[in-house]
């Protein structure tokens, strides 16, 4: 089997060439990168922790001013050089350590160009919403596209759980059949408060127990592909073709090798540190657990699943329908046992703005602390067993902590402007980390609407290796990742333009 290469480097180069330009000046550096990338293909991994309300208001994230001019209406600063306070919910020592190591990225000024809608403007869906909420037809969200991607999940890798997805029924629904959907993961189900965590546990630990390689497939497919690979090698090494074309053949061969593994009975990736992180997985079954307990289980299991190669994608959409949970351990909640969604987010309790901000910060701090301690730190402490580039698991993946954003003036509303994702890791260098990138939303090229949040989703999708054709299908007016934004809105002129990752954080 041929040696694989770092596909992203070549692909990004080739994209440049394919855009009707020749990037000859970059070729020498590219070739050197090719030469040193004698490693296995790094599996791309992504973890998104999202909250479908405006928790992380811009006022709560520091620094809020960037100074280095990147372009018209765009500034940045390297976060590792910033020594001030990151904000009252970002104080965790592990998180700060990652920031100082250049593994943190914040982007400010991302806007969804769809009409805000209760639970429908969540950006993971690029505007896709529940039918029952708004009557808009259900179309795929980001996880559905990743689930269906043959690039991300080639047929040979059946041992992966395609997506770990914890979500309720309101915000968005999967379109697909193979997502491991942890239904009711936050429901205060009268009968079983533990079912979501238990289901995730059984899925993950069950995979740990059954980690034997699949039997080689019978037939001549494997030998055929071996010889196809041989034919490609002969052309690459023996013909009068340009260096650029050799890179294209490399790319073709790498994909061939992935298909080849289907027929050669390739073993699942090595599983390291795959011990069961939960001490008592089957208990309790009917006792009411706090949100705190369940989230702890989720974080631990997801960290294990990502580090062991049991899945490549995990999404926790930290809220669901039904009886709303308090959102934090009630006993720890400063204002007492309230319904976080109704009483705090939508302020049915009549909090002052300052009280709301305090509670938002409490919610965000709890999640940031747990995310840092239970996911980020363990993943960064372990060298990636699936990639020989010597980097940690976290460096070879991306973790995004996001919520609807909003501003203090209207903290209870569903606000689809000025999203601010906080990200960790850099996908092995694909993402330009160690930055606070600020898009000027008041005087920008996009005239007061920052840049489309959809571009961050496309950044994720392309970083995970998906091609444009794998995620534009099924998009409809203003929804999904294709026809966008909505016709007839002031943003109509930007329709069909947002197929690009965010340039300022995309190294590719």
């Amino acid at each position, binding site marked *: 089997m041929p040696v694989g290469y770092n596909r992203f480097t070549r692909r990004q180069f080739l994209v440049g060439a394919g855009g009707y330009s020749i990037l000859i000046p970059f070729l020498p550096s590219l070739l050197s990168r090719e030469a040193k990338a004698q490693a296995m293909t790094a599996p791309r991994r992504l973890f998104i922790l999202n909250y479908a309300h405006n928790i992380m208001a811009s006022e709560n994230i520091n620094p809020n001013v960037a100074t280095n001019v990147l372009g018209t209406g765009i500034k940045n600063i390297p976060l590792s050089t910033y020594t001030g306070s990151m904000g009252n919910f970002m104080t965790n020592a592990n998180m700060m350590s990652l920031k100082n190591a250049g593994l943190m990225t914040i982007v400010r000024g991302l806007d969804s160009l769809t009409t805000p809608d209760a639970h429908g403007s969540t950006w993971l869906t690029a505007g896709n919403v529940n039918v029952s909420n708004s009557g808009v037809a259900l179309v795929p969200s980001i996880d559905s596209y990743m689930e269906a991607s043959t690039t991300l999940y080639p047929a040979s890798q059946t041992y992966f759980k395609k997506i770990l997805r914890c979500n309720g029924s309101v915000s968005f629904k999967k379109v697909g059949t193979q997502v491991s959907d942890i239904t009711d993961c936050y429901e205060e189900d009268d009968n079983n408060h533990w079912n979501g965590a238990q289901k995730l546990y059984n899925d993950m630990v069950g995979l740990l127990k059954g980690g034997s390689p699949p039997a080689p497939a019978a037939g001549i497919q494997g030998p055929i592909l071996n010889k196809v690979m041989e034919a490609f090698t002969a052309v690459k090494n023996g013909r009068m073709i340009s260096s650029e074309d050799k890179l294209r053949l490399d790319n073709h061969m790498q994909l061939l090798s992935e298909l080849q593994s289907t027929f050669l009975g390739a073993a699942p990736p090595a599983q390291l540190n795959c011990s069961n992180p939960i001490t008592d997985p089957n208990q309790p079954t009917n006792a009411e657990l706090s949100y705190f307990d369940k989230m702890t289980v989720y974080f631990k299991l997801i960290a294990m699943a990502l580090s062991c190669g049991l899945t490549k994608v995990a999404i926790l959409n930290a809220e669901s329908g039904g009886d709303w949970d308090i959102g934090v351990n009630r006993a720890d909640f400063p204002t007492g046992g309230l319904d976080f969604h109704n009483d705090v987010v939508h302020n049915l309790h009549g909090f002052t703005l300052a009280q709301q901000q305090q509670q938002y910060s409490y919610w965000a701090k709890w999640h940031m602390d747990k995310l840092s301690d239970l996911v980020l730190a363990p993943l960064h402490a372990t060298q990636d067993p699936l990639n020989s580039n010597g980097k940690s698991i976290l460096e070879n993946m991306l973790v995004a902590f996001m919520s609807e954003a909003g501003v203090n003036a209207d903290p209870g509303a569903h606000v689809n402007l000025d999203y601010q994702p906080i990200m960790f890791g850099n996908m092995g260098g694909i993402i330009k980390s160690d930055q606070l990138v600020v898009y000027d939303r008041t005087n920008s090229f996009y005239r007061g609407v920052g840049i489309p949040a959809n571009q961050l989703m496309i950044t994720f999708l392309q970083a995970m290796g998906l091609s444009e054709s794998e995620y534009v299908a099924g998009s409809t007016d203003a929804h999904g990742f294709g026809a966008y934004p909505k016709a007839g809105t002031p943003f109509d*002129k930007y329709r069909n333009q947002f197929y690009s990752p965010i340039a300022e954080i995309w190294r590719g």
Partner: protein
Amino acid sequence: MQKFRKLFGDPTDKSVMQKKPDTKSQWMAKSSQRVLHIVVIATSFLCINFGFVNCSPVHDMNGALSAASSAGSGSGGGTGTGGNPPTPASRYQFTCTPGQTTPSQMQRLSRREYQNTIKDLVSLINASLYDATIQADIATLPDDQTSATINNNAVGEYESTVLVYAGHINGYFQTAFDIGGKIAANATYVKAIPGTNSCLGAATVTDACVTNFINGFGLKVFRRPLTTAEVTQYKAYWNLADFSSTAQKIQGVIAIFLQSPDFLYRIYDQGTVTSATARTLTSYEFASKLSYLITGSMPDATLFAEAASNSLTTPAAISAEVTRLLALPSARPTIARFFKEWLQYDTLPDMTRFPSSVTNGVDVTNLSTNMMNDVDNTIQSVVFDNNGTLQDLMSTKVSYVAGNNLAQIYGITNPNGLVTLPDNRAGIFSRAAFLAKQAQPGTSPVKRGRFLLTSVLCQSIGNPPPGAPAQAPALPPGEFLTTRDRYQFLTVRDQNGIAAVNCMGCHSRMNPLGYTYEAFDPFGRVRSTEPVTNTNLNGQSVTENLPINTQSVTNELDVPNVAMNSYLDLHQYLSTSDKVMSCMSQKWFTFIQKRSPAMAGSDDGCYMNEFLNATYGTSQSGQPGGQGSIQDLIKNTAVSTRFRTWNN
């Protein structure tokens, strides 16, 4: 409006406007007088264009025509002295440095080409092999369509085969494996494999039979004879221990062939070495390249025979072969791709987005398809049926009207295919597809002008400045202005005559071109008035039908300050414009090479000059009406030694 006109003069005042442009011969004869006339107009409002560098005319990439040359002196990599009208000595030329070449790119078969090739290849054995299974396999391939952008604006799609994705690899494998399996499982198919003389159906397959199989089938797959090393290589595949039966050997070798780089990519490096970095294509490679250029598929039997006899070596023979290929049905959709990628009419807006005030009774069902078919068939009529020129495209009244909805837009009662449109709709850009594409949903002179400026004239234009509104603001109560006037006030000068300094640099370039099309509503219906609805000062909703004004003056053509009464005048100027012809040459280069031309001054400029000169035709030597046809352009492309050269 009146205040505006009083302060700065009405740019469309007929007292200073040119009369309708002359016929072409008159145009050629009256150039000097025309200069004097239009200088007068230049003193009116369009002088605001001066001094705003934010969007000043700049020459587009790759040595394309400089706007400065329109004033009579070539620059931006071009030579020539311009003039009005262009004289033979001053026709625009790209800067050319012979021998300064860019390495040739191998080109992967696009899904369209792959599908055509598979169909033609298996039909050499039996046409029924191209069945639903194989078609379904091919349908899994990514479509290779990529968004084309100009200044970050998505303007259409083009076929891009630079990257390959897992979907390609999986689809190639499944198609190859299934074709091999179907052939191997059917004795009739096995006996029909090219070059084998049925020997593979014998009880014992001899070594000579295998050699014939490799050579015969390989010739069709690689579109050239295999080298000795390749024959040895593929015979070794036949003898693989993993292939335990003849059927498996046939299936396996065919599957390898159909996934090989020499099948999936077009690599023309087998020819005679002419320099350290160049090779002349073999006769087979030339035949293959010509076939894909015109038919989008592998060579047919005639081309293979001509390659075998090496008979395509003279310009006359090549031209004759191009003529034959252009007559094949497969040539039409292949050449149509060029026009789609150049003029971007294959990505039209969703017609259901238009409000009823715009559709005005037109059924939008299949309207986009009808519009695109109209342009496709119109272009085919000009290019294929009438051996037409760029001038013909700009003046044609032929249209393909297949649906009642399009007929309604055109005011035609008999929508049954090719028709001749009324005199008020001449030239390709008067077709509904182009007019509706630029609507938003009302007419947009800006978008219509931008399309012409960037796509047809290949001129660069900058991005909107910070804070520029996306759309014209609503009219205040009591104000009734046409779309044209609203854009004029917003982007060039307001109603008080104050210059829109951040906007006018670009808009004074785009708007005048777009104004000439204001005689068409958003769907492309002819109109003489524009209904404008607003509240009057009493708060009542009132609709006023305001007269349409299509007169305009532009600096964007080959000479400055060209006055136009309507788009018909614009089309006439475009039809003989060096800028348009050089733009088309540049787009043609990009289309056939699958890349942009290299920087100015390279050998690419020489190649584009060949296209440009073919388009100039005899008009280059001062003979009016002698413009070369589109077919001439294709023939000259094939005859060029550059077409026959592989560089590295």
